[in-house]
């Protein structure tokens, strides 16, 4: 009987090599503010959960479905953010980052990919 047959999920994960060849692109809705100390403050839109929107509407609040959040980058994050220009691939960003701070290449890869993944999770960047 096929009722209890395990369904195989189709994996959408890409390999490490493929991921390194991707180009990170900034979300056009993200606002970038350069602070006095040179660091970058990002203001990015976040979609509200439908049940929260419903609740707000019920209490007579606004019907907007997005709100904004802020993220302040440190020196390293700012440098990576500046390297995201729509041309540099992830591999190139890692190489430039490693060169600038004299990181071991593997170490730079770990920290840059972790940072890019976090930006991607927040919808601040995308990969193409």
């Amino acid at each position, binding site marked *: 009987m096929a009722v209890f047959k395990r369904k195989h999920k189709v994996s959408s994960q890409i390999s490490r090599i493929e991921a390194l060849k991707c180009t990170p692109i900034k979300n056009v809705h993200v606002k970038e503010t350069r602070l006095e100390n040179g660091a970058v403050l990002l203001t990015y839109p976040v979609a509200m959960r439908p049940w929260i929107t419903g609740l707000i509407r019920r209490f007579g609040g606004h019907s907007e479905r997005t709100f904004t959040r802020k993220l302040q980058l*440190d*020196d*390293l994050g700012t440098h990576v953010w500046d390297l995201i220009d729509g041309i540099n691939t992830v591999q190139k960003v890692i190489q430039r980052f490693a060169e600038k*701070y*004299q*990181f071991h*290449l*593997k170490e730079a890869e770990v*920290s840059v990919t972790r940072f890019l993944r976090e930006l991607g999770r927040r919808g601040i960047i995308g990969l193409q």
Partner: protein
Amino acid sequence: MDWREIAWNGVRCEIPDSWEVVKIGLRYLMFAEKSAPMMEIKWGQIRGKFSHHSQLRRLAMQQRKKFGKTLKEIPLPPEWRTPLSEFISVAFSWHSQTISGSGAVLYCPTCKTATLMQFFQKHSAHSTALVQHILGSFQDHSRDNRVIWALFDIRALIPAEFDLIKYRFDAGQYELIFSYKKQKITLWRWVPASVLLHKQNLEEFAHRVTRFALKKTVAPVRADPDWVEWEVLPSTPWWSRWRSRRLLGHAPTYYRFWHLREKNRIFGVKIEGKQAIDSEFVNSICAGYGSV
């Protein structure tokens, strides 16, 4: 081809510069090139009689269970004989649907260490010269009672009696802790120093990472902008004195931090023990530790 030295927990060899360490264990190393596995080394001390054949049988069973590989003993390739002349060796090969490999089980009669080295071949076989170079550079014991630890960008020389009890390779921070009887050596490495020391000096940074406040118990030995060292006496409350006497004795803990500007790195060494720490010992540890 450029070669790089790798040394970890007693074993040492040279690998191509394009290979990277992808898995680390206490007695295990795995190397890859562009995400493809290239070489694996496992080793351990043997107590009693060593049999290559029983080791190979065990390995064959493990491999079959894991990957369905067909492992078989083969005659030692003639080009491996000279580099492995100091070892008693048995060669083997295996293949699965996607990948194949060959390697050798080595036994060193001098230090009684057994090592399994295997080379993975996915698309093409490794060149004979490459395998010969790796096998020729392989060592499983030191000749001067000091063990080399060289991985990623750090290299340290630690007395052979010290065992590695903890290691951490995080992005930006490495930590290795060695122990022998009641003595402990901790090695640190931080990067990038230019960012870490942007809003604080080396002394403040050292205090922050070692989590001890600047108190009367701290006796600076020498201080300059790129170098700080302290001997920290056990804290004064009676229970701490009693505890530290029981656990470590009453000897001060030694800290040294230095900033290597040309490499943009900060190195740190902590030595603690039951007896007073010999300055020559401290200097030898710090002199042998650095960046490659």
